[in-house]
């Protein structure tokens, strides 16, 4: 069993009567990447602020590396790196000077800081612009500078709030790849995002937030199995003269449901990989198979489906 590095129990934050975070229970193991996902206003940032001790919880408790962030904030903050959602730097200072200030605040000795800053800038691909003022930096560069700052602290845990916000798709992908690499250093990562599909690939586990409550928690395939019923969704494109193809697909063992979003398109939900069987069934039913492809279950689908079911009273 992996070591638990971050744990919350019934963590709650109220603003007056408004419950921003409701009884959050979270356990993060060492080296995991956890995604705190949900739409804007769901309570992600509030949860993160409580984990860091930047906001006091109304009730419940937090343990970060076995420490209480409200009692022992300095020890927690020395071991946890935080990348806020709207990250700002001292624009009139250079990238290196900005990192230098953070190093001094962390009490890192001068030669050690110099070495770490160099390494962090190099790793984030910012070595060439180290002497440039941050004012001239693009959003993507700022984000990477933020990550360089985290690396400089050599934290055990990194917490990132909406790290891909405002990045173009390519920059977002690059950034997520950098996050993946942190896993190799055995750093635990907790990131929040409202772009479910964007981050699902990097997360080992995700927690889906809705109005302050973490409604679903687990790995993406697990959630897909629980919520979508089938973990596999096979997209089939085929011409058929009569309704035979749909019928044939439905008849396959292991198929849970078949949807027909367009005249020649079918979506097969299956308990296991049925691609070969589906192809065979289409041809046997006299259909002309044009394409067949298995989609990864998408978190957006899971989220949408979950709330459809909640509304229809299928759950609770």
């Amino acid at each position, binding site marked *: 069993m992996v070591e638990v590095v971050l744990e919350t129990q019934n963590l709650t934050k109220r603003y007056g009567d408004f419950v921003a975070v409701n009884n959050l229970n979270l356990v993060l193991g060492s080296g995991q990447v956890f995604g705190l996902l949900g739409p804007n206003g769901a309570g992600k940032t509030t949860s993160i602020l409580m984990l860091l001790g930047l906001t006091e919880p109304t009730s419940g408790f937090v343990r970060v590396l076995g420490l209480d962030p409200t009692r022992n904030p300095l020890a927690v903050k020395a071991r946890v790196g935080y990348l*806020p959602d709207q990250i700002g730097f001292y624009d009139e200072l250079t990238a290196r000077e900005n990192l230098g200030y953070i190093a001094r605040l962390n009490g890192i000795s001068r030669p050690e800081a110099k070495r770490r800053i160099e390494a962090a800038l190099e790793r984030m691909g910012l070595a060439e612009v180290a002497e440039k003022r941050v004012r001239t930096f693009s959003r993507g560069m700022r984000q990477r500078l933020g990550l360089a700052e985290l690396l400089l*602290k050599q934290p055990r845990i990194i917490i990132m709030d909406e790290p891909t916000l405002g990045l173009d798709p390519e920059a977002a992908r690059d950034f997520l790849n950098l996050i993946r690499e942190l896993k190799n250093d055995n750093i635990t990562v907790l990131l929040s995002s409202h772009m479910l599909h964007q981050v699902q690939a990097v997360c080992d586990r995700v927690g889906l937030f809705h109005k302050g409550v973490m409604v679903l928690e687990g790995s993406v395939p697990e959630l897909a199995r629980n919520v979508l019923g089938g973990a596999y969704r096979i997209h089939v494109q085929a011409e058929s003269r009569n309704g035979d193809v749909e019928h044939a697909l439905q008849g396959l063992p292991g198929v849970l449901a078949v949807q027909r979003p367009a005249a020649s398109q079918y979506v097969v939900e299956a308990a296991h990989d049925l691609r070969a069987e589906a192809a065979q069934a289409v041809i046997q039913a006299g259909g002309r198979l044009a394409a067949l492809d298995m989609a990864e279950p998408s978190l957006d689908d899971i989220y949408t489906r979950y709330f459809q079911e909640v509304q229809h009273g299928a759950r609770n």
Partner: protein
Amino acid sequence: MALATETLRPARVREGSPWTGLWAVVAKDMADHLTSTRMRILELLIVLTAVGTVFAATENLRDTVGQDRFLFLRLFTTGQEPLPAFIGFLSFLVPLLAIGLAFDAINGEFNRRTMSRVLAQPIYRDALLLGKFLAGLFTLSLVLTAIWLLIIGMGILRLGVPPGGEEVGRLLFFLLATIFYGGIWLGVALLCSTVFRQTATAALTALAVWLFFIIFWGMLANLAARTLAPVQLGTPQEIIAQVETSQALARLSPNTLYVEATIGLLNPSTRSFGLVLPTQLQGALLGAPLPLDQSLILIWPQLTALIAITILLFALSYVIFQRQEIRA
């Protein structure tokens, strides 16, 4: 709302020194101040004023070299029409400098969105706030000390005599009083920067407070004294009571405190502020200068009040800052 829940909570013991990281903040902010354009402009303004007024003063003082024991004090207090003396300018320039140093101390960090990044480092808010205050105070001290040395240097060059021991002593205390006077306005600006998120609002509010005390407080003190201690029969006791009330109220203004402290230090023959009754002067040699220690006893209340107000303002900023949620 959030305040209510947080005050009800029993105070928990924090661990680790509240001053961790203090000097990192002081060093960073002082470096910012000393390189900022804003400070360059204000420093230039002060240097020009100092050179101008001292130049004018030495023109006047040359004739009295050798006769006046307190020649160097006069450098600061002598004006030449239409130019007022340097201390007259100081009571304007020091608040301006101090407000310029601190009006965006806290809200500036919020606006640049650096606050949450800084507070995510192992540092308490205490250290951040005190660091910002000290950076301002040290910068102010540095600038004022430089000006002070400049004036004394100019005096030595233009008058051809060195200052005496007592003169240097009095001038040192004068420098100290000026720094603490600046400390008050630093405290006002810091408080404004904690309360208002807009830096422009904070700057204007701090300036408004300053103008209020410079222009209106004296008048208000007079008006209030008339209602608090009315003169109905016109007896001397009533008149004295009214003047004393007015004076006590005026002393709530940092300007009054500073001006009185300055007069006591730079004008050695000052024996008391305000009304002097004949009985108080019995046995005193009129016009004879007091020794430095006597002058210090005279202005001690003013000096301590300047320091106390500064501490009070800082404490208020501290309480407000501790309760702010850091979301930016």
